[in-house]
């Protein structure tokens, strides 16, 4: 599956393919016997392409992709932090996820090394933009409301456009190293906690990698249960984004109503799975059981869904017709379409800026294949309003998919003959799994040996898109911050790892 190149040819090949229109999806490093393997994953029509190169043991670094493939910028910084390898020619290599003190040993996740607690440098950053009249404002890492920790530095150099930087290492948990050595089942529990608001998507992407290593087919009923929970998770995340916009715009009644809808949805999810975040549903080989922890009959779930959808639709229609709200989002936080393409933006952020890809329809996995293709609509204005419309359109689609999944389950009967999961034995191998999380395309590169995890590298949409967040602030950086942040809808846990 891998196409190997020497480091220079690797840069040329990846640059050529992305120049020809392939989408750069990520750069994955893994320790191997001879050094460190780098794999660039690219997407075009057909299967993912994986280009590989070896950074030999003892080498200090590798020629950076970033000068020719700007979407690789954060990946190369992350590799520098975690593997101690310098991306030569990279324009900016200050620490991103792990600011180790000089001389400290990088963790090299997957190497199996036991590591002492990391000694890191959390001192304030010297101003990036030098000169007279430059001032720096810092937000975080402790935020003024109930948010995840991250630090944003806004530099306002005189007349020029303010410049935004993010420091995401505060919440770095070393998750990739935590996966090493776990059983396949425990890996699913950890994947659910990588980016906790997208637990279902993470478990699906992780498990589908294992299933493709094993060559296993998930039972049809399990595939439908996965779709049901993944789509409910999508609605919950989109409601969260709408709610935060409404709060930011001072629309108190709308905010209260969306908070109410979100809570009802979380309760429905708990009724179906026992967990308000759908945890424990997706297991390697299928799902843990029928979607009725509370013993609800399918028609009762259907009518709860219908009621909820109806209320959400009414409020969304009203909100998008409330001029004071719409005006606040229009033209705010514009991510230009060319930039979104060049940096391969994913998810609602990409779709708000003309990047149409949604892996549920472009690379259908599991039951999405049989549920019919989604009509993925993109918007081109690239502002917070466009991203909000994308989410507003995805909510009814998600409800529709939930109903299809429930219909399918009813047709299969209460306890399907083939069961809810197939056994995934003590497999050995490596594969890529994917899912469309609420935040966008999610990838898991999983490698296992005799049923134990050797290396797991999740690539969240939040990580990929946060790099673009910095570019969406051409003006009004201070007043519009809350909106732009809400409109990106990212999770810092998923960014920091």
């Amino acid at each position, binding site marked *: 599956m891998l196409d190997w190149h020497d480091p220079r040819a690797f840069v040329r090949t990846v640059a050529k393919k992305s120049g020809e229109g392939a989408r750069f999806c990520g750069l994955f490093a893994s320790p191997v016997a001879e050094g460190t393997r780098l794999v660039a994953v690219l997407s075009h029509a057909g299967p993912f392409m994986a280009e590989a190169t070896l950074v030999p043991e003892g080498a200090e670094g590798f020629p950076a992709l970033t000068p020719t493939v700007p979407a690789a910028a954060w990946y190369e910084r992350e590799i520098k932090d975690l593997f101690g390898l310098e991306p030569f020619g990279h324009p900016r290599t200050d620490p991103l996820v*792990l600011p180790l003190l000089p001389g400290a040993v990088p*963790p090299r996740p997957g190497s199996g090394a036991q*590591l*002492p*607690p*990391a000694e*890191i440098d*959390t001192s304030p950053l010297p101003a990036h933009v030098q000169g007279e009249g430059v001032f720096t404002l810092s937000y975080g*890492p*402790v*935020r*003024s*409301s*109930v*948010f*995840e*920790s991250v630090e944003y530095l806004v530099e306002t150099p005189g007349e020029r456009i303010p410049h935004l930087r993010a420091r995401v*290492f*505060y*919440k*770095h*948990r*070393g*998750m990739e*190293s*935590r996966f090493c050595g776990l059983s396949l089942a*425990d890996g699913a*529990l*950890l994947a659910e*906690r*990588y*980016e*906790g*608001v997208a*637990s279902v998507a993470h478990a699906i992407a992780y498990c589908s990698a294992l299933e493709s290593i094993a060559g296993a087919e998930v039972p049809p009923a399990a595939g439908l249960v996965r779709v049901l929970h993944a789509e409910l998770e999508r609605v919950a995340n989109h409601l*969260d984004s709408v709610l935060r916009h409404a709060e930011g715009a001072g*629309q108190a*009644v*709308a905010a*209260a*109503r969306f*908070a*109410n809808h*979100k*809570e009802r949805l*979380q*309760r429905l999810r708990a009724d179906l799975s*026992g*967990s*308000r*975040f759908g*945890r*424990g549903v997706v297991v390697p080989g299928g799902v843990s059981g029928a979607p009725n922890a509370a013993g609800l009959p399918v028609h009762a779930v259907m009518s709860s869904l219908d009621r909820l959808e109806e209320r959400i639709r009414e*409020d969304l229609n*009203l909100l998008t017709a*409330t001029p004071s709200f719409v005006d606040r989002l229009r033209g705010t936080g514009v991510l230009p379409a060319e930039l979104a393409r060049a940096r391969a933006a994913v998810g609602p952020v990409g779709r708000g800026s003309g990047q149409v890809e949604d892996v549920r329809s472009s690379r259908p996995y599991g039951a999405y294949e049989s549920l019919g293709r989604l009509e993925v609509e993109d918007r081109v204005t690239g502002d917070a309003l466009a991203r909000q419309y994308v989410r507003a359109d995805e909510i009814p689609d998600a409800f529709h998919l939930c109903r299809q999944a429930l219909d399918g389950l009813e047709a299969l009967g209460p306890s399907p003959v083939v069961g809810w999961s197939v056994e995934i034995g003590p497999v050995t191998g490596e594969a890529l799994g994917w899912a469309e999380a609420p935040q966008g395309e999610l990838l898991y590169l999983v490698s296992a040996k005799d049923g134990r995890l050797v290396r797991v590298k999740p690539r969240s949409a939040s990580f990929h898109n946060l790099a673009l967040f910095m570019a969406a602030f051409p003006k009004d950086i201070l007043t519009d911050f809350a909106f732009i942040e809400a409109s990106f809808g990212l*999770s*810092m*846990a*998923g960014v920091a790892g």
Partner: protein
Amino acid sequence: MPWVTRGLREGIVTTRYPRRSDGYGASFEGHVVCASGATGDEVEAAAAACPTGAIALEAAGARLDRGSCILCGRCCDIAPRSFHFEPGFETAALRRRALVVPAGEGDDKTITEAREQLRERVKGLRRSVHLRHVDAGSDGSEEWEIAALTGPIYDIHRLGVFFSASPRHADVLLVTGAGTAGMQASLRLTYEAMPSPKVVIAVGTDAVSGGLVGGTYASGQGVAGTVPVDVFVPGSPPSPFGILHGILLAVGLVGEAPGGAVSGPSRDQAEEREGMAS
């Protein structure tokens, strides 16, 4: 302005907790119960299968640490006679040890002491309570559950509880996450900036013990090593009701009642308080 009339359309959605028990809260399967004197092959298999090592095999029988449990349900499947889920959300505790069930000898006494000490400290907080939240490495779900408390269903403002943007006006610190290396300094600074008396609540299994993510080079093993924790709220994540219980426990408005209902004089106090705030 259509939103004005819209707000009223769904009638009363707000829970009456803690004045009355809440149907949804009471039915939520918030913790795992371990039978006393649990032994045998099944129990040993369950302990071995637990992803966080939450089950200890002791001479008098297995004990389960709810502060490490991530509610995966594996032990309940393997040894259903010894472990089972139980509905109820009032799982917060004033002592780390109180999360280990069944209770050991002497635990009751230390818990009573802890309650009295805390009550003494929070005397001054009777009118309104201000909360500050710090994320010390959560998975992001705890923030959703905390934020839900300000929504119309939980509406903690009715209890005179508010979020504060500054640590200088906060009485209660809610900490999520296992305590990452990167957040040590910021967590400490926030705690120090709060005026006394102050109360710290560890929200979620990660904050209590590190849970499943703890123990790497960067993740931490709970926040008690960084700031002194007064109330431990287990759960992965805990439900909004579980967090609310932890907050009310911290300010002395409810008691600890694992698996049971709130009782005694604390309920009258809560009633008084609700009247006061509205």
